[in-house]
C-alpha cells in the first residue's frame, strides 16, 4: 500500500462525501447513464462508433496531462464538452464515464464509492451543460473556423466550472472539514482558471478534427438539413 504521490489522484476519493449522498449520486449516475445508453445508438454508426472509442482513449490520455494554473495548483482536462462536440452528448457522457470507471478500477484514481459523484459532475453535468452551450452557439460555430474554435472554448470553460459546482453541491449535502463558502470560492476560482486550459485543449482538438474530417464533428454535422429530417423521422 503505497501512499499517493504527485501526479496521480485527480478525482474525488472515497469518504470525501458521506455514504448516503454517495449512494444518492450513484443512483443519479446510473439513471443518467441508462438514459444515455438508450439515446446513444442514434449517434453511433460504422464511422462514428470507432471515432467515439478513440475520443474516449484521447480523453484518458489528456487527463494525465496536468498543467499548472497557480503555484502549487494544477488542472487537467475533464473532457465533457470535447466529447459532446465530437460525438454528441449521449455518447460523449458514456466516453467520459468509461474513462472515470477505468481510472477508478485500474489506476486507483477516484474512489469506487465516489464514482457516482465523479460521473455526475464530469460525465453528466459537464457534458450536457457544455453541449447546451455549444448548441446555443451553433450558428457561430458553423459560420467560420474561428467561430467553431470560440464555441469549443466557451463550451469547455463552462463545462469545467459547472462540473466544479457539482462538487460544491455534493459537499454541501454530505461533506465536512472546510467552510462551504471557502469550498465554493476555491473550487470555482481554481476551475475558472483550469477552464481556460480545458477551453484551449478543446478548441485545438475540435479544430484539428474539423480540419481533417469535418464529417466527424457531431455539433456541426447535425446542423445539416438532411440529418435534421432524419432525426425528426426517428422521433416521430
Amino acid at each position, binding site marked *: 500500500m503505497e501512499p499517493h504521490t504527485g501526479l496521480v489522484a485527480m478525482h474525488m476519493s472515497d469518504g470525501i462525501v458521506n455514504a448516503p449522498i454517495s449512494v444518492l449520486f450513484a443512483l443519479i449516475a446510473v439513471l443518467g447513464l441508462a438514459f444515455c445508453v438508450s439515446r446513444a445508438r442514434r449517434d453511433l454508426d460504422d464511422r462514428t462508433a470507432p471515432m467515439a472509442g478513440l475520443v474516449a482513449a*484521447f480523453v484518458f490520455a489528456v487527463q494525465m496531462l496536468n498543467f499548472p494554473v497557480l503555484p502549487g495548483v494544477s488542472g487537467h482536462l475533464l473532457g465533457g464538452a470535447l466529447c459532446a462536440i465530437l460525438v454528441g452528448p449521449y455518447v460523449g457522457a458514456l466516453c467520459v464515464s468509461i474513462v472515470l470507471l477505468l481510472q477508478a478500477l485500474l489506476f486507483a484514481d477516484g*474512489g469506487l464509492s465516489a464514482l457516482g459523484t465523479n460521473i455526475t459532475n464530469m460525465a453528466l453535468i459537464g457534458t450536457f451543460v457544455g453541449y447546451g452551450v455549444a448548441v446555443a452557439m451553433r450558428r457561430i460555430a458553423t459560420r467560420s473556423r474561428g467561430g467553431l474554435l470560440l464555441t469549443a472554448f466557451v463550451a469547455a470553460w463552462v463545462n469545467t466550472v459547472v462540473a466544479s459546482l457539482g462538487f460544491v453541491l455534493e459537499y454541501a449535502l454530505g461533506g465536512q*472539514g*472546510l467552510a462551504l463558502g471557502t469550498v465554493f470560492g476555491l*473550487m470555482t476560482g481554481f476551475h475558472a482558471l483550469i477552464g481556460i486550459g480545458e477551453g484551449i485543449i478543446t478548441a485545438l482538438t475540435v479544430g484539428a478534427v474539423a480540419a481533417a474530417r469535418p464529417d466527424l464533428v457531431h455539433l456541426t454535422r447535425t446542423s445539416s438539413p438532411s440529418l435534421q429530417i432524419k432525426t425528426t423521422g426517428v422521433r416521430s
Partner: protein
Amino acid sequence: MKRLPLAFYAGCLLVALLLAGVVSYAASGSPDGLDAVTQTGCELDEAGEPVGGTCIAQNAGEHATAASPLADYTVGGAEGTTGVAGVVGVLVTLAVAGGLFWVLRRRSSPSGTPSRVE
C-alpha cells in the same frame, strides 16, 4: 458501405499514445484544483498525506484498488513507468469504449442509410 477513415483513426490513436506515453512525463505534479481544495487547511507530509490541521482530505479512505498493478499511473509502483501505464490505459479505454460503441451502433445498409434492424 462507405470506406472507413482508417488513416484518420490511426492518426488519432497515435496522438493519444504519444500524449499518454511520452508527454505525460512533463505533466505537473501539483495537486489539481479539486485536491488543492480538499487539502486546504492541512499540513501535508512528503507523500501528500494530511498530517495536521483540519481539511476535507482527512475524510478520504485508502483507495479500494490501491493494490492494482497500475495504481497511481505506474506499473507496479515503479518510478518512471507513467508512460507505460498511460499507453496501457489508452489501449484498454479504446478497447472497452470502442467495443461498447461498436455493439450499440446502428447497422448500416449498403446505401449508407440506417436500416430498420432489431
